[in-house]
């Protein structure tokens, strides 16, 4: 695959290229035309023609217009249409214009106990809903790097989630969430490069969560290794983006916060620095305020919802390609995360 042999060019050119060992597309496109002319003894016209033939093979889709993207015309488009994954709360969805982006890396950063894992668990449930209800009709892969996976909390959320509609009672939510624990970057990388593709190619998973990315990068590097850390982060992000584009699914990465050194502005900023920020598509920030609210007690189909005081938290869009810098308040109850009405 992807060698000169597959091209529709003069066999003489193919032979010349094979003789000098220049057969892969990447190799040929990255060499300068003069170098190829010299090495393979071809004329400028022949090299240009060769590069053009390769370039046409390399492109994964023809140039489309934004109108084609909006309307979803032309079959080859499916991977390019970026939809939304519902967060499970209508108000939050409305603020986010439908939910989180269904491709790219969405980061959820926040201090401990701000609700990051809750948010991720909720997404593991909404992803299993059919597209009409804002889901992607498939399961989730949850990669834990920190504490043990909160199975009890997930069970509780599932039982509440199912109550909401008859259709939901049919979905075996727990069965479609695949959990993996990794301890360090090497095991994270091998999980992503080896285990995940198996799971993803069957189409049974349409959401990948890494909880958290920060844990993997915050301990093993000394000060003098910061350059290496940036390299590894960029490499990890590139792998995640590749998976996102290839299998057409959202990647959610949880990040911690670190103290900001500025005297003005926020106390906390997301960890991992600019090197990581440059790699992500969207950043959401969760935090607790010191205000509390008493949640009214409701009984829904025999289960209790609310009925206790809880902290008011804020969700902020730090950056996103399609959203302004908005913030909204939410609480966490038995069902999960909901906007404060």
């Amino acid at each position, binding site marked *: 695959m992807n060698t000169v042999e597959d091209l529709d060019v003069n066999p003489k050119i193919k032979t010349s290229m094979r003789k000098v060992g220049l057969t892969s597309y990447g190799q040929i496109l*990255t060499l300068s035309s003069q170098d190829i002319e010299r090495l393979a003894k071809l004329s400028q*016209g022949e090299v240009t023609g060769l590069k053009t033939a390769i370039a046409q093979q390399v492109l*994964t889709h023809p140039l489309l*217009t934004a109108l084609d*993207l909006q309307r979803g015309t032309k079959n080859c488009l499916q991977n390019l249409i970026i939809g939304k994954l519902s967060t499970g709360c209508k108000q939050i969805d409305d603020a986010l214009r439908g939910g989180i982006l269904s491709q790219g890396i969405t980061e959820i950063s926040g201090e401990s106990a701000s609700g990051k894992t809750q948010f991720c668990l909720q997404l593991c449930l909404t992803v299993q809903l059919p597209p009409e209800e804002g889901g992607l009709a498939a399961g989730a892969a949850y990669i834990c790097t920190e504490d043990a996976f909160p199975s009890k909390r997930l069970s509780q959320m599932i039982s509440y989630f199912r109550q909401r509609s008859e259709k939901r009672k049919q979905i075996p939510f727990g069965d479609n969430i695949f959990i993996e624990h990794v301890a360090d970057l090497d095991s994270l990388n091998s999980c992503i490069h080896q285990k995940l593709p198996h799971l993803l190619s069957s189409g049974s998973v349409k959401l990948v969560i890494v909880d958290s990315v920060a844990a993997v990068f915050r301990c093993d590097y000394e000060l003098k290794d910061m350059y290496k850390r940036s390299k590894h982060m960029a490499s990890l992000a590139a792998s995640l983006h590749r998976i996102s584009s290839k299998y057409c699914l959202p990647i959610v990465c949880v990040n911690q916060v670190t103290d900001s050194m500025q005297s003005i502005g926020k106390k906390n900023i997301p960890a991992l620095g600019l090197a990581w920020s440059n790699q992500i598509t969207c950043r959401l920030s969760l935090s607790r305020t010191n205000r509390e609210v008493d949640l009214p007690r409701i009984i829904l189909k025999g289960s209790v919802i609310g009925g206790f005081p809880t902290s008011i938290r804020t969700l902020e869009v730090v950056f996103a*390609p*399609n959203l*302004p810098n908005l913030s909204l308040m939410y609480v966490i109850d038995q069902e999960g995360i909901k906007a404060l009405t």
Partner: protein
Amino acid sequence: MQSQRELCSFPIAPSHKSKLTSAGFLITEDLKHLKPSELSKETGIGLEECLEILKLVCSESVDGSKRNEAPKPAVSALERLKEEQSLPPIITFSEGLDNMLGGGVPLCKITEFCGAPGVGKTQMCMQIAVDVQIPSQFGGLQGEAVYIDTEGSFIVERLVDIAKATVDHCNEMARLEGFKEGEITVESVLSGVHFYRCHDYVELLATVHLLPEFIKKHPKIKVVLVDSVAFHFRHDFDDLSLRTRLLTTMAQSFIKRATEFKIAIVLTNQMTTKFSPGEDSRLVPALGESWGHASTIRVILYWEGQKRWAWLYKSPSKKESRVPYQITMGGVRDIVTSPADNSNDQSDDEPSSKRQKVS
């Protein structure tokens, strides 16, 4: 260049090659204007073979000279100036930004926007992709755009927001000036943005290679945007000299297209932290020092407190300056200050009706 090509690189029999070399014929240039009989006498190669050799060598160089053409006649600086002034720039709808750039994003040049995530690089690109389509009766270029997305941040609904605001603005101007409304619609704007999603640097190189043919087929194209040029060159690139070479070649290709087709090239770049011994670390555009020479105009977008600022860092014709701007639902705009300040801003040469502020 072809005339400098070594003879031994041609498919000539080795025995002939050695005879040519010992007779002193090393490059194509040496064989020009030689008759086969003369070559035969000098080298001792048979007449028929000499004919073949000359045909082979000179037909290649004939192609070469056709390609290299007669050198273009020199153009005076005044003609150049007139040419430049006849090509209107692409406005961004932020008057402050446009003034800083000398009217807007200029054609025939590479303009680079650098900034940290969230400062508005993608928004700027989308704004430009829409504004290049403004009809000529409103002072626009009535062109089309090529948008190359490397990061996956091109979200159509956002482009629709920006297109709507521009279309409304144009329709309002049409109403005021008695033109027909509906010259430009959201649909026409969307269909005028040609989109390509690059997943790695090889795809980016391929797209850049195919650009000239595409532009020839779509002559209305007036801007090519790459958002961002840094993304795929900053991971898994162990050979930095290869990276520099690829970036330089890409930049050269861009500048050629810019001048050949009279279009604007807009690139976005990320920021990185530079550590200098003895100094505080600071943010600088990514891709290194050598990339700094690629763009003609460099604008650094940054945050100061809650405000966004655009800093004209490098320009051949305008002085270094900074302006604040904001991103609204409709796109890139000036920061709206109090009415008293606004009256001082109406200092352009164009009639103010063509440069109405968009809220």
